[in-house]
């Protein structure tokens, strides 16, 4: 297949959109996957648990 301007423009306009949707779904699934909840909660609090301030207490 010859790659000309129109091919690329068509690709940009159609597959770009599909890629976008697929990508959004992947990120959303990851973020809301139930098993990940705990990890995110830990990460969220990780900078505040003072472990980095008082490592000797661990």
């Amino acid at each position, binding site marked *: 297949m010859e790659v000309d301007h129109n091919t690329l*423009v068509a690709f*940009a*306009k159609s597959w*770009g959109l599909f890629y*976008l949707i697929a*990508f959004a779904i992947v*990120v*959303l699934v*990851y*973020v*809301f996957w139930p098993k990940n909840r705990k*990890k*995110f*909660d*830990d*990460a*969220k*609090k*990780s*900078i*505040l648990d003072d*472990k*980095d*301030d*008082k*490592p*000797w207490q*661990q």
Partner: protein
Amino acid sequence: MIRQLTSGERRSAATILVALVIVGLAMAAAGRADTLGVHGAIVFLYSLVLLFLVLSVIFDPEPEPSRLSQYYDDPSKVGIVLTMIWAIFGMGVGVWVAAQLAWPELAFDAAWSSFGRLRPAHTTGVIFGFGGNALIATSFHVLQRTSRARLADQLSPWFVVFGYNLFCILAVSGYFMGITQSKEYAEAEWYADIWLVVVWVTYFVLFIRTLARRKEPHIYVANWYYMAFILVVAVLHIVNNIAVPVSLTGAKSYSIYSGVQDAMVQWWYGHNAVAFFLTAGFLGMLYYYLPKRAERPIFSYRLSIISFWGITFFYMWAGSHHLHYTALPHWVQTLGMTFSVMLLVPSWASAGNALATLNGAWHKVRDDATLRFIMVASVFYGLTTFEGSFLAIRPVNGLSHYTDWTVGHVHAGALGWVAFITFGSLYSVIPWLWKKKAMYSARLVEVHFWLALMGTIIYVFAMWNSGILQGLMWRTYNDSGTLAFSFLETVIAMHPYYIARAFGGLLFLAGAIVGTYNLYMTIRYTPEDATEKAAGDLPVPGRGEAVAAGE
């Protein structure tokens, strides 16, 4: 400070600096008939001074091995001082160029001080000098704390800090002499660009090596943003700056891109410099210093991940909104516009996440000017990204483009978001780094806050007025169907706004000077915090770390 380097590291530093001294001499000799020679002299002197500092302690005893059980913060400290020096320089030049538009005699008919040469000195001074140093300094701090690990070695952070500042000095001094590629926000010439690549690769490698030593399995989201900043800026910088030098003995080069392709590459770079330099990196600051200062976890960690991928994905498409109604093909303009509007989603997710974090802690915002800096930064981030999406809509852009509205928009972001989040983060981190109880004067932080806020608001309102007014005047027709105003009439109408803008900038500059004074007094005259908390800011000891001294 240099005594903290091991003797091996001191020798490596000396070797690198000797090499740089030679490079500087070679540049000065080869470019003696050109402004390149001046840059050779600058490289020579810069590395000579550093070499002298290193050599003065080269035979001193080895540092204490106990340093390896602490975080390595000296480069961050130096970076923060440099940040404030660049702030005063960059903002000072900004006030001067702003005043030149109101009173053109202030160029004093000299070449180096004319508007066109000062303007890139201002933009580079604030974006790369002030912003870049702040990003590097805070990234080292955040990276170590969130990884609970010390920086991978002691030499490369110095290489990054001093190498990066050499780039900034070469860039800015070049503009005064007329060395410029004319590519906006990438004006530095080919040799400075090559040097920045070397520095940046070192930065990236240091970041990755330190991450690899982390004691936490999960990489905290602030580091994602810092990493995207480092990576994507490297890609942007390299692609946009590919050029053919006229000769190796001169500063001038010609970009490999021309015309419409160059315009697209330039604004793909330009807009993503906004995205990954002025947004992603500073969001990294937000996601660490906001929760730390407010002593509350971020409202939604999930939201921060969604906005991260949203920003990383969407921004890259948006650059073409700088080229509406131009000779750029229509479909590319439309694509840029669409993605710019969609960008509002991840942008507001971040801004909302920040403000929701503060919900329930508003009394702290009221009492603590540092936290208020961060809060106002989040508000301006939300406002500016909304304005940005709005200005990217083609017909709106038809009015706003080429006018001061764009300048106002940029400064709403640069002052209201970038500078506010930087000052908020610095006021948080300075006492932690220098192990003080607090800043020298909370009162002066308060003064700085109000000066900065008033300055920003005056600036932005002046530019909204002048931009919209001029855009409308350009397209106003009289009854006979011809254009109502000559171009000159629209210039004269700007005069009062240009005065107001310079005044707003002056207030902002005054705030930065107050902040620098406060920093100086904190370092010099504030007693150390001897409590357990300050003493306990340590990395988690790793296996065999103590013996890895020569690393």
